[in-house]
């Protein structure tokens, strides 16, 4: 695993053990810089948790904006074109835990985002349009792959 100091140095020869590590590197680096500037030591775990918190806040804000502005629409095609929804898709796999949490808590039309991010579609034909069943299908899909939320 790459050390915090190596992350802080931002070496052009950076090598990451996983895509997720690579994605987390920039915010972790930034948080470490903030920590140094303010004289507060920060462990890699703390930085990772802080980064996850930032992602959660960003997702929640986008999801709220989307619901507020698209709740009255009867076409999912229009809903998914909303900038907030597109930005959630843009979060990539970082958004998966939050999308799954939303499906579990309050099923809504996150299915297109899930398909766009994962390129998979676990919804069987007989469940098409049945939002609670579609949500359960995705949650089961995630459990089978060990995706946590």
């Amino acid at each position, binding site marked *: 695993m790459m050390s915090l100091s190596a992350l802080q140095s931002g070496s052009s020869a950076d090598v990451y053990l996983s895509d997720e590590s690579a994605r987390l590197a920039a915010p972790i680096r930034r948080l470490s810089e903030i920590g140094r500037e303010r004289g507060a030591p920060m462990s890699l775990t703390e930085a990772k948790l802080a980064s996850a918190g930032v992602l959660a806040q960003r997702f929640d804000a986008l999801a709220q904006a989307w619901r507020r502005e698209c709740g009255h629409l*009867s076409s999912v095609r229009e809903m998914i074109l909303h900038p907030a929804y597109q930005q959630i898709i843009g979060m990539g796999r970082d958004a998966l835990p939050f999308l799954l949490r939303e499906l579990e808590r309050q099923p809504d039309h996150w299915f297109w985002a899930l398909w766009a991010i994962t390129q998979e579609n676990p919804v069987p034909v007989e469940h098409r349009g049945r939002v609670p069943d579609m949500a359960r299908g995705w949650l089961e899909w995630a459990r089978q792959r060990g995706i946590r939320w």
Partner: protein
Amino acid sequence: MNERMERLFPALRGVPYEITSPATPGYNCIAWAAGDDSRWWEPAEPPSSYYWPEGVSRRYTLEAYAEAFRHLGFEDCENARLEQGWEKVAIYAKEDGRPTHAARQLANGDWTSKLGGLEDISHPEPDHVSGTAYGRPVLFLRRRRAGYTPTTNQEETNP
């Protein structure tokens, strides 16, 4: 009175509308107008996972939406006027012709609309949900109301 609803649909202001269900994303206006409150109807092609009647074109056109209702026994008609024994639906579209909404007429002449993932409401006229959000009603269809028995020489008052 619902402030958010009236902000989205200004034509509801001052009108005796009624909220008739809780908000839910489980079904939309097209489904509700078709009498289905268990599924969201959407013509999008797979990998979209939404319901659309078998054999009806999966296109976001007025014709495809009308065909979805003709599939259920509806036929085109001239207007929204209450006709005893007939159940009518209105399909709404924006100025560019994009279908946006459908409403169903109740037996008493009022209309019922599912507002996307928001609540169902009943409203006296189709135009009470016209405006920026949905455009206006552009197509009407009708079918015989279930349980209707035509009589002669008297007005039918089936519920």
